[in-house]
């Protein structure tokens, strides 16, 4: 039963993928971002690989239209690396959903990714994935309360509003700050 069901699910998820991705071009044309037929096909295939890799099943159109909607106004997205960046973000998204043990909603994860993609990652998807998303999911697994978890609590306690994603995630910073001594030392070494 298990294998047959999985095959059916996979078949189901492959449907309409490409058309949906191409339909997003209308939304992103104002920002000069377009996907070609080949890009859409590659992203649809990458979606299957990402879902299989993270051990997930998805119905309907998947997260990509929402991912595009969330990221399309980022100043760091460029047409020449658009499809490639989307592929990386999509894979990271599914991976994080599983690593966060289902404690994050799609919206929370997308908001976090979008916010940190711009600053401090400056459009570097690999930096976002290897550093910030890794820290974020680790924190969530250790009991970090996401804004939606705060909201659920507030319903009962009627306490003050929940923090924004950035306020809540402020503690994710692990690097030490700017060291003037180290800077001088480096300058001396260069001389």
């Amino acid at each position: 039963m298990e294998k047959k069901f999985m095959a059916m699910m996979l078949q189901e998820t492959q449907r309409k993928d490409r058309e949906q991705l191409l339909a997003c071009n209308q939304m992103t044309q104002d920002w000069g971002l377009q996907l070609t037929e080949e890009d859409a096909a590659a992203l649809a295939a990458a979606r299957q690989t990402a879902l299989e890799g993270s051990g997930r099943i998805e119905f309907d159109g998947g997260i990509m239209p929402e991912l595009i909607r969330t990221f399309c106004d980022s100043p760091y997205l460029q047409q020449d690396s658009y499809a490639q960046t989307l592929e990386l973000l999509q894979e990271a998204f599914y991976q994080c959903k599983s690593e966060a043990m289902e404690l994050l909603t799609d919206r929370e994860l997308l908001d976090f990714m979008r916010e940190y993609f711009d600053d401090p990652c400056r459009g570097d998807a690999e930096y976002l994935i290897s550093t910030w998303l890794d820290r974020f999911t680790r924190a969530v697994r250790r009991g970090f309360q996401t804004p939606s978890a705060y909201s659920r609590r507030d319903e009962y306690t009627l306490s003050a509003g929940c923090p924004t994603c950035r306020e809540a995630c402020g503690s994710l910073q692990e690097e030490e700050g700017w060291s003037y001594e180290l800077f001088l030392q480096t300058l001396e070494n260069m001389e």
Partner: protein
Amino acid sequence: MDEFMNLVRRLTQRYTAGESTSVPEETALQLAEAVLFILGRQGWEQEALLSTKEARLEAVYEEGKGQILAEVRQAQSLYSGIMENFTSCGNLALEDTMQKGMPQFFLRYDAEFAPQDHLLTLDYPILEHLEHLQGIDRIIAYLRCIRLEQDFLHLLPERDLIQILRQWNPSFRTHIFNLPQIVLSKTAACLLAGTGSLRKPFDRTEYEVMEERIRQLGQQNLGEVVMKAVEKLPGLKADHRDYLALAVPGIAAEFVTGAENRCLERMV
């Protein structure tokens, strides 16, 4: 297949409350099994389900879900009835299963997202095999068996039951075994030894008489003798007798082995 997948899709959306487009494979499988379980109870074969395009599948599913909820209520009332006059004779497996486990089942059973899961390990062993049943079906069948067992146990005063169990094994409280089976063994042993009191332990002579009779009868005939003892028990209906008859082959085999190895005193 389309209709079945639509049901699974809608159930997944309800499961995630629309906050996640994807779920782990295990969750998707659990939800698909939930749909299969409900439709299976309505007479739909798995193969037929995966190939059907019948549009009324959702109505069948909703009806099946309603039936499950009705059966949960039926199980609750059966359980309440049993607990009004419940005796475990101090046996921890029975006590924990009924007094601690069952209320948790009613508290946590999920008729929508995991109706196929019966949640409990049901540690206390009953005479009937229920491995082929799932979810609420298994719980209802288990409670019906417990109901029959309780009726049987109430034929004797609790003090006498405890006496019989203590003679069988002084640590009967912590052992995992079927209570009526031990009481029935003792009844059959009394019949074979020709003694009248269930409470009294057997002496050596009585064991020798028993061994001799068991050798004479053989396993087949012995089973019939034990069965007759069950049938003669007063205050029992056909349901009770059919249920207790499930213990007879085991008791007969045990007695034959005990007589062959001269160790009946460790059994009754």
